[in-house]
């Protein structure tokens, strides 16, 4: 069944072997990703790693040059309306019509969505403290994000898609966004895909994550499984090492002299065995944070591992 995930009925998003170039730049490099219904899926990666490009393919804003994209089993480029009315989307740019007032924005957006819930929209507007008569252009950055979040949520979408929702926002608004994510999955078992640099946010709310580096997915799976398969080992050598030790399974090694710390991927027994083979003692072992894993993965990729 698992190998046949591309035709799983419970997949909300199915991306199969999608490659995308912008000129000479490879923005997406054979990306395959399946997002099941009812999960919170975190997408992480450095700036320019391809996260927004991937999201634009899901929204049908970009057509796959090769490979295929299916959202609710639909091709979002061929059937944009069928897919988009089931997606709530908050972009990093929050490209709202600035000349409108908040109440006008709600009425305008309502027209696109048959399932718009006016009572819920009003409840959210009150909760977010948005003045209905305020002009969008006069809203603060945080209020703009809330307005964008409101129109993404008020039609109770099956898929909530948030592209860097927290970037540049204060902790209060970030909290509103996390609340919205949790409420979305708690209430009706809907699906959330969100991209972020903030790994603590991802760790808090996600079931699964995918990590992108230079247009490729380098890591993909449940958070627990990812954490359990990574280890931080501190090695101690009897003699000073002039070069970082070449530990099998290490993604990154840092240190100097006799002590070195490695972020590793693999089974602990094998890693410890490899350390002993190098003539080192393991003096400390722990679970790395997602920050550590992320940085190690990005460095490993740039070293061509």
């Amino acid at each position, binding site marked *: 069944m698992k190998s046949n995930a591309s035709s799983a009925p419970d997949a909300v998003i199915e991306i199969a072997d999608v490659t995308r170039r912008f000129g000479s730049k490879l923005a997406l490099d054979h990306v395959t990703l399946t997002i099941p219904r009812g999960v*919170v899926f975190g997408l992480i990666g450095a700036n320019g790693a391809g996260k927004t490009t991937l999201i634009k393919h899901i929204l049908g804003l970009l057509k796959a040059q090769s490979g295929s994209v299916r959202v609710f089993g639909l091709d979002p480029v061929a059937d944009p309306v069928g897919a988009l009315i089931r997606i709530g989307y908050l972009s990093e740019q929050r490209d709202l019509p600035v000349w409108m007032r908040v109440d006008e924005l709600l009425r305008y957006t309502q027209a696109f969505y048959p399932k718009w819930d006016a009572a819920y929209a009003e409840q959210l507007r009150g909760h977010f403290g948005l003045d209905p008569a305020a002009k969008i252009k006069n809203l603060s950055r945080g209020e703009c994000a809330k307005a964008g979040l409101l129109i993404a949520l008020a039609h109770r979408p099956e898929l909530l898609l948030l592209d860097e929702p927290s970037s540049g926002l204060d902790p209060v608004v970030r*909290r509103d966004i*996390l*609340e919205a994510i*949790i*409420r979305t*999955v*708690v209430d009706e078992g809907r699906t959330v895909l969100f991209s972020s640099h903030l*790994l*603590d*946010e991802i*760790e*808090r*709310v*996600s*079931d699964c994550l995918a990590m992108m580096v230079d247009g490729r997915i380098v890591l993909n799976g449940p958070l*627990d499984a990812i*954490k359990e398969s990574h280890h931080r080992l501190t090695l101690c050598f009897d003699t000073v090492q002039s070069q970082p030790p070449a530990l099998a399974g290490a993604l990154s090694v840092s240190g100097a002299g006799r002590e070195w710390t490695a972020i590793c991927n693999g089974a602990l027994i094998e890693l410890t065995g490899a350390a002993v083979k190098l003539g080192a003692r393991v003096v400390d072992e*722990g*679970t*790395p*944070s*997602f*920050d550590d894993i992320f940085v190690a993965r990005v460095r490993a990729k740039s070293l061509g591992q």
Partner: protein
Amino acid sequence: MAGFRHRPTANGSSVSSAAEKTEAADKCIIVLIHLNNVREHLITGLSNPLIVQIHISPNDGVPIYLQIVNQVKYLVGSGRLSPSEEIPPIRALAQQLLVNPNTVARAYLELERAGIVTKRHGAGTYVSEAGSPLARRERLKILTQRGDALLAEARHMNIEFSEVIKLLRERDEILTQAKK
């Protein structure tokens, strides 16, 4: 099965007397969280608000579900959660802590397996009657972890064990005097 352990609970007087014992300093925080809970309960439609003091610090290496497990154990161990007291429903706690509901579910499952809480079919999750005998063991377990960390640090800093003991004794004297 956990279901056979259902037992009617005495409610009312014991609950309110426990609440009276709450220290004034805690009260301010509890009121804030309470207000937040009331809001959540208006949304989730639950009748009696539940209060649990849990703080999540992501990115410190300890998985979030384990942070919840450890803190509930600690709350039970320190008597801040009493046997047969109800703990929040998974969804309510997920919304309160802003963590994934599956993470809370996993924590509750671990707590149930450890015998700390008991699920009553269709009626929520409660601190087990068996929770209190476990309490001392759990408290010692928590203390053991702290002790290990202290000893490891002392070793790294080349501080002798006897000096650590001396330091602890000194600190204990200072804290005892401060209490008086």
